[in-house]
């Protein structure tokens, strides 16, 4: 049993802040002032997280969890053969989902903002694109949570707990 400090406060606050805003904006306020304000807060959070992905060291740095095809293939064969490869940071498949989520969040924020501008006033299609990406975001969130649960059982490391206190308890 060794405890490894993996997720710094920036990653954790970004994660749970995003969770809160995405769910509030999807289910509670699907339009209006609060929706827009929270959307902009999310854009601010995203901006710092993206910057942090380039300037920080350790597991928050994008370069340290880039899912290369070699790493992806290795991980998938491990899963198929039932071998448990222990990853301290993101596993390669998880990392793919992280980049998908970050990219989708950016698109949701940008299209959401554009829909409010004068340029697209009176048109519906920008809002429809916004809704399309939101739907994709929710599908991704569903898969993300499923993957986290699956990987927690497979590896025996409580990944959800690690996102709360930042510490992975390695077996």
């Amino acid at each position: 049993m060794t405890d490894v400090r993996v997720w710094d406060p920036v990653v954790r606050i970004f994660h749970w802040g995003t969770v809160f805003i995405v769910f509030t904006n999807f289910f509670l306020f699907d339009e209006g002032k609060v929706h827009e304000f929270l959307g902009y807060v999310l854009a601010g959070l995203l901006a710092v997280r993206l910057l942090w992905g380039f300037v920080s060291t350790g597991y928050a740095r994008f370069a340290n969890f880039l899912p290369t095809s070699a790493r992806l293939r290795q991980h998938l064969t491990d899963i198929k053969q039932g071998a448990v490869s222990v990853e301290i940071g993101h596993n390669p498949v998880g990392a793919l989902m992280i980049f998908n989520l970050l990219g989708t969040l950016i698109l949701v924020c940008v299209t959401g903002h554009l829909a409010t501008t004068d340029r697209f006033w009176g048109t519906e299609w920008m809002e429809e694109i916004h809704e399309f990406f939101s739907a994709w975001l929710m599908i991704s969130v569903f898969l993300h949570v499923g993957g986290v649960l699956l990987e927690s059982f497979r590896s025996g490391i409580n990944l959800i707990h690690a996102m709360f206190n930042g510490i992975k308890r390695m077996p």
Partner: protein
Amino acid sequence: MSSWFKPMRFLSFDTEPREIRILSAGLVLSGVCTAFFTLDIVSDLFFDGYIPGGFHLGIEVGVVVLSLAVLVFHIREMRRFFRRHRRVVDQVRVASGEFAEVINALFDQWQLTPAERDVAILLIKGLGFGAIAEARSSREGTVKAQSNAIYRKAGVTGRHELLALFLDELLQDAQSE
């Protein structure tokens, strides 16, 4: 060390290597930025009559929240760094202090005279007879005689074996760690 860093001493470090300066500078910088954005939000809300909502304030709130997280992270990392740094410095100090004690203990055991102790230290440090004589302002012949007395008392045949004795002590310490 420039004097404007002196207030950082509350973080308790007694040496100031490059890493600490960089960390401190980064901390001050991110602190100033976070403070600036926070003040901006406050002034927007209370003095310029911004309505909570909209582009400007929203993004700012998001940025400030994560900037605070960066600040927390930074302070904690610095603390951890100082603690580790201090521990290593202490360990080195203890190790070198202990080696000096080992040397003194051996000298006591061999019952060296004060003059012989000085010569022995210089011998271990690798100085030649000429240099030792010069350092102690005595003659080379005297130093040679003192050296022979040291070798005899230590039970070794020459300088190499004397050095080997101390090296052995050092290696034993390293292995028992």
